[in-house]
């Protein structure tokens, strides 16, 4: 409840104390001896006395300052929307000679890129989720209690490595490594459309990029899963164990039912991160303009929005820049929708 600052009460003027000491100024020391307490307080100790009125002003100022900080957040986000829209707008009407990669129109540019982003992020999600959930299970329910913190920190370290380092590693170490497996994969499983086509020799395919992305989003999904596993009601764990359930049965009976929505929400957060991830893909993937394909192993690959922007921005000029900004706006909208959905899955905890 807030206390209204009343219109200056008449008693305040009568106060014997000097009004409004600035807080830093040395205040008159308080008398150490106890004053007598008559039924009527001396004027100096009136409840309405002005000694603390500076404090009340400072209180208002503190509230106003912190509220203003909150307002900055609001303004900043509004500015992001407005500036991206204002600067992205001209690209909607731009023709082939102005747009990057000589695209017919903004949408023929944006469409395949949005497809690439979604496809790469979905693949990464499909790869990362089971691994992250398994790792989280291991940390919370299998590993010895003493080293749980250490193992969790190790998985969290995956999130601390900058994406440009993942890019460098993905391109120089990981891609050549997985490329060795792509040839046999396409020979034996080539009848599956996903693995059809001539496998890339460098390994810089969308599957490699998705694998690197999976490594990057794994710690996000793992940490959310860990949190929900930890919150399993201990009574249910004990109850199922008391019924003679094995550990795995206990997990299926007691842990998973509670964790499902948490895992889904963690996965969505991971998806949001994967959609916005830029440098690792920009470095690992060897893209072909305007391509839309589900094939995983070929040397011709669809590009993603974020990577396209990063690759083309340093050389872009004029309307080209506007087009890239417009692409950024599209990416913003997609990730916003995904993150919003993620939060809707888990109803917000009452605070």
């Amino acid at each position, binding site marked *: 409840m807030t206390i209204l600052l009343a219109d200056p009460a008449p008693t305040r003027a009568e106060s014997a104390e000097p009004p409004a000491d600035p807080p830093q100024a040395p205040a008159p020391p308080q008398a150490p001896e106890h004053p007598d307490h008559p039924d009527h307080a001396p004027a100096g100790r009136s409840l309405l006395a002005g000694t603390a009125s500076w404090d009340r002003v400072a209180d208002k100022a503190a509230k106003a300052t912190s509220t203003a900080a909150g307002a900055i957040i609001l303004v900043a986000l509004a500015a992001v929307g407005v500036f991206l829209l204002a600067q992205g707008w001209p690209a909607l009407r731009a023709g082939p000679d102005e747009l990057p990669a000589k695209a017919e129109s903004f949408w023929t540019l944006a469409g395949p890129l949005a497809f690439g982003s979604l496809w790469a992020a979905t693949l990464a999600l499909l790869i990362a989720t089971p691994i992250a959930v398994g790792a989280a299970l291991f940390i919370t329910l299998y590993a010895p209690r003493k080293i749980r913190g250490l193992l969790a920190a190790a998985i969290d370290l995956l999130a601390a490595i900058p994406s440009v380092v993942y890019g460098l590693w993905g391109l120089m170490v990981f891609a050549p490594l997985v490329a060795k497996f792509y040839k046999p994969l396409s020979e034996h499983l080539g009848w599956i459309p996903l693995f059809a086509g001539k496998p890339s020799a460098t390994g810089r395919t969308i599957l490699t990029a998705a694998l690197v992305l999976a490594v990057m989003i794994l710690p996000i999904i793992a940490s959310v899963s860990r949190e929900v596993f930890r919150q399993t009601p201990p009574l249910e764990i004990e109850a199922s164990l008391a019924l003679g359930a094995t550990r795995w049965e206990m997990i299926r009976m007691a842990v998973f039912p509670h964790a499902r929505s948490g895992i889904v929400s963690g996965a969505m957060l991971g998806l949001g991160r994967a959609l916005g991830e830029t440098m690792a893909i920009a470095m690992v993937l060897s893209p072909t303009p305007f391509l839309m394909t589900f094939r995983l192993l070929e040397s011709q690959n669809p590009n993603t929005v974020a990577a396209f922007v990063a690759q083309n921005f340093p050389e872009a000029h004029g309307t080209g820049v506007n087009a890239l900004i417009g692409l950024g706006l599209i990416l913003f909208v997609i990730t*916003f929708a995904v993150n919003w959905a993620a939060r809707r899955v888990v109803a917000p905890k009452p605070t």
Partner: protein
Amino acid sequence: MATIALGLPATISLTRDHVRRGRRVKNQVATIGVVSVFTLALLPLVSVLWTVLTRGLARFDGEFFTNSMRGVLGEGGGAIHAITGTALITGATVIMSVPIGLLTAIYLVEYGKGPFARAVTFLVDVMTGIPSIVAGLFAYAVFSMILGPGVRSGVAGAIALTLLMTPVVIRSCEEMLRLVPQDLREASYALGVSKHRTIRKIVLPTAMSGIVSGVMIGIARVVGETAPLLLVAGFTDSMNTNLFSDRMSTLPVFIYSQWANKGVNAAAYDNRAWTAALVLIAFVLSLNLLSRLVARVFSPKVSR
């Protein structure tokens, strides 16, 4: 099924339980699966750290930390200009995002109620999800509208990073402020201490170690950001200590540009990229460790 056991005679031996065999096997398969999946998750970490360490040490020398890339076409050269740039831009980011973040957290925890507080909470969530490249595009859009197109500067990079770091600071400060027991606030109010002094002298000092460690995590997150800096701060071979004009190299962008713009001696460029990666990772990891240390060692013991 688990309930079968209830009906069995008490004399039955646990080891002769045929019904359980299938379940035991399933349990063992699950255990093996979980252990191997965890190991699988750690493999990339080990590989990345090992590669960065072994390949990065080649150029981990005095020249790397004292020279810029000015006039260097093959071997030699260093990243002092990029390290300086990272320090300057990160510093500017901290100066902008910590006050805004901390104050917003104070607002949300100590003052905020009603629709405005809910709106701010929601927007902080939205902000957390902004892709880093979008933050870069935003900073570019702002600066190009004010200063004309094609402008690159360190401060634009700092603006982009602020957009990314502020929500991290808000979230962790908020969490830390909420951990301060309500008891302490009440004890202070009961002493006739005003609200702003209670926040400044009681709440903030109690939460300080957590706040510092949260800020460190925030720094660790943005110091490795590449995409927004590539867009708005750009890269250059020479030292630039002026945040407000001209291109400014940073460590992550240095890594990218060494790889992307190789000159005559490709190996020399790769080596420099790996060394920069080593420096960057070492910095990020020590920040992470340090933040854990700060949170553990300096947190006041609240009697519960």
